[in-house]
């Protein structure tokens, strides 16, 4: 079981690097979808054999929403907004990956000295969760398009979810469903916002939204 958890976490980290390195929007969306599915599997695998109906259904729901529903919404928003298929980052892909490697080092270091109330299923869980959060932050900072911002936000949420799997194995079902609903509504609203931005400005480059400011430049 522990091997399975470790393998899932390694794949989680690898999808993080894939997000940083790939130049295609479609590949990024797919990577986030895979992350969502992996997290669902992780939540089941981390229960260590003590399976309950709720304990299986809830991760499966989350995996379905994050792996299929949200990507579908984003792809639709992308199609509606007529975006180019390139990611167009503010810094190069190689630099992104190197920053990612540094982030991985930081999260491993952090994961080793962070005191936790209970023992996580794997020593890699906390570093992987931190790393996924950091990848989300890096994506939010270095990518300029609105769609990639949504992807960064989703990755960040995935990281938080993984961290939840590390420290709180039995989260109340209502809280978890609520978070899932929040994320879903968030992405839904962002999809609509992207559509409107692209209709208003003919592009979804967030850098140019500065022009909306009242300040006379």
């Amino acid at each position, binding site marked *: 079981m522990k091997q399975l958890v470790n393998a899932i976490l*390694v794949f989680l980290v690898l999808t993080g690097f894939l997000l940083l390195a790939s130049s295609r929007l479609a590949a990024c969306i797919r990577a986030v979808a895979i992350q969502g599915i992996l997290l669902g599997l992780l939540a089941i695998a981390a229960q260590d054999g003590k399976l309950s109906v709720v304990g299986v259904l809830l991760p499966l729901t989350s995996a379905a929403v994050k792996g299929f529903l949200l990507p579908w919404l984003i792809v639709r928003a992308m199609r509606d907004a007529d975006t180019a298929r390139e990611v167009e980052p503010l810094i190069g892909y190689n630099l992104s990956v190197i920053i990612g490697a540094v982030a991985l080092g930081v999260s491993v270091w952090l994961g080793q000295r962070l005191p936790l109330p209970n023992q996580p299923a794997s020593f890699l869980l906390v*570093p992987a969760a931190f790393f996924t959060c950091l990848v989300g932050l890096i994506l939010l900072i270095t990518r300029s398009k609105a769609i990639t911002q949504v992807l960064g936000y989703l990755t960040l949420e995935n990281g938080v979810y993984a961290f939840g799997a590390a420290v709180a194995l039995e989260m109340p079902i209502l809280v978890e469903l609520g978070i899932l609903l929040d994320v879903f509504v968030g992405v839904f609203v962002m999809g609509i916002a992207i559509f409107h931005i692209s209709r208003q400005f003919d592009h979804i480059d967030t850098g140019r939204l500065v022009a909306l400011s009242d300040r006379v430049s």
Partner: protein
Amino acid sequence: MVLAPFLQGVINRTKAIAAGRVGQPLLQAYHDLWKLLRKGAVYSQTTTWIFQTGPVVGLASMICASALLPFGAFPALAPFTGDLVMIAYLLALARFFTILAALDTGSSFEAMGASREVAFSALAEPALFLGLAALARQTGSLSLTSMLESVSGTMWMRAAPALGLTIAGLGVVFLAENARIPVDDPATHLELTMIHEVMVLDHSGPDFAMIQYAAALKMWLLGAVIIAIAVPSHAGNPLLDCGFSIMGMLGLAVITGIVESSMARLRLLRVTQLLIAAIVLSGLALALVQR
């Protein structure tokens, strides 16, 4: 060591079958070596002794490196603690002299190839080192022989992700160092697109035979490390273990041939990305075994 050029034959045969051709004989590499050895060497007047030293040093360091490498059930000829660093540096020494010899000819093509080789190997080397470090950490020893011997089925049960990542990282290094397709096309005829081949354009006769044999040995070396991790066989019967390892090597050659047939050469800019990915894979393996 005798089998080393045979690997290239297997790769070429795989590529030929994938392309629908009959392909050259499996032993073509040996015929090439024999043909080259019987010829005389031509030296350009602009070259110095460095040019003639290049192939000799290259072959010598490859032979030294293969003395450090175990195969199957047979331990290395001369193992000592820390020989994995030695092996990496022997590879680097051979590369350094190939590059010097290439620069010595004064040909602009060769200088270009040398610059590419340096750029890519500078990225391939950290990946190799991190992969070996992860392996050393996992097995708790610093000598290739004892390191590769202690990789076993039970270790795979315990640390499959780390070993898998190490293999993936070393696999990319294997392709890059041996100038195989995603990085460099060994069959290209255009000097501008070559990396490794272009550096040895001016070598001829026995010198070229030495270079080719050294290249075959290098492929065998890196391949043997990968196979020792991927196919750990400790049946107790030396012949059986060796058989397994040789089967593994042939399998690796077939996989390389399939990769070459199914992929195009990457753009030079993308190669750095591939190698950085290899560094990340090996680094992740190292992070995994830290606990």
